[in-house]
């Protein structure tokens, strides 16, 4: 089962991140890599670098930044392939709380159907 773990953090969190915190996250990622559960991990650039493409009148139009005024933005994501949802939640729960304010765990759709 694949899960997208979305990490929401406060802007500028990275400035204030201690080496210990960074190490803590790297240890967690190394462990997931070692267990064969890590499919991918990426950090996102600052929200101000976002470009939004909208389709007014079916014509794509590009604007700067996200429209929604939100304090917490997605700062990065981890793609996991784990046995069940509980395992994904357990992993998400291990993120250092001083780095993320919330973590969303969302299952991926399966491209196939179950046997019938």
């Amino acid at each position, binding site marked *: 089962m*694949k899960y997208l773990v979305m990490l929401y953090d406060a802007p500028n969190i990275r400035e204030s991140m201690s080496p210990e915190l960074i190490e803590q996250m790297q240890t967690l990622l190394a462990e997931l*890599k*070692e*267990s*064969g*559960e*890590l*499919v*991918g991990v990426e950090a996102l650039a600052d929200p101000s670098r976002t470009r939004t493409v909208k389709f007014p009148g079916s014509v794509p139009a590009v604007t700067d930044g996200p429209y929604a005024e939100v304090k917490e933005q997605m700062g990065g994501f981890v793609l996991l*392939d784990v*046995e069940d949802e509980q395992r994904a939640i357990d992993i998400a729960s291990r993120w250092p709380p001083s780095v993320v304010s919330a973590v969303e765990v969302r*299952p*991926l*759709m*399966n*491209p*196939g*159907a*179950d*046997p*019938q």
Partner: protein
Amino acid sequence: MTDRQPLGELLRDLTPQVLGALAGRSTDFAACEDAVQEALLAASMQWPADGWPENPRGWLITVAERRLHDAFRSESARRNRETHEAALAVSSPHAEEPSEETGHGDDTLILLFMCCHPALSPPSQLALTLRAVGGLTTAEIAREFMVPESTMAQRISRAKSRIRATGVSFRLPSEAERPDRLRVVLHVLYLVFTEGHTSTAGPVLHRADLTSEAIRLARILHRLLPDDGEVTGLLALMLLTDARRGARTDASGALVPLADQDRAAWDHAAIEEGIALISATLGTVAAGPYQVQAAIAAIHGEARSAADTDWTQILLLYRVLDDLSPNPMTRLNMAVAAAMVDGPYAGLAIVAGVEQEEGVDLSHRIDAVRGHLLEMSGDLPGARTAYRLAAQKTMSMPEQRYLERQAARLERETE
């Protein structure tokens, strides 16, 4: 030499035999597995260029053993020589085929038991079985499971170190533990099958490779254990289920339910083979869950139409299956059969029972079956709501499309 087996196919057939021969003589399974992979690579490069050896199996064993020795030698240059000499109980490399001709099958069987060892997690069992017994490359397995190669490589190497850490030895399980161990092997093969089968829908993603790999492995196991009813049952179940593959989706990749499938598009040769297998085993041994499921699939396979199906017999078999291994999924299927025999309310009562059980991880299935049965009973708004709920909860894309379509159809009909 024109009727020769294709190289890739031959190498995959020989993989478990070569690995089995090596693993029987060395305690370091991971090193054996690496050595076999290197020998296979050497063969795929050298044989097409230099011609095939007289004895492909002997050639591979000799080369793999040499690689194994080389690996230990370079390893021991760095580390303590004696421990590795002790780990390597291999005599000198053989120039010829080892004489134990009868041992090939046992080696493959031991290998299967080893890869499906209960100390390994199911994903590890799956990956290791495909690699060590199936002879698939890590890249191929990674592609099948849609994960990066590094992720799959890690899973396999973890499985191998787990084997080393738990001290699993290369031998057949004892008579006493054998039934339990065989159950795990069958389950792993079944998982390989469903993994392939679940994703054959849609024009984009075809993973029929895993399905045929599972069938190939089940055939090997059936050849090794022809008298085991559950092994036969599993092979029959796979054949009978896979036979419907061509009719399970329409041209756009959308799901077609069993009742609406074009039965002419079923693979009737596979159905015949499955029916023959299951008929030969039923009644001769105490039936197990795979045999019963195969028997149900055989009844569907024999029916000329959904209406022509012997639902009474199917209902009976689901009851047997639920007694053998109680499972909410079985009871949901039973609900559909009960509705066909005794009407929709009989089915809905079973669905309500399943819903009340704790720990049911099937809520989208419950809603989907309820939608179907409510529609049968004439409650179209109720059916529509149930389909919508199921569509929201399912994580299968083709299924979601199918359920949305059912809901939209009922919406039009009730307007």
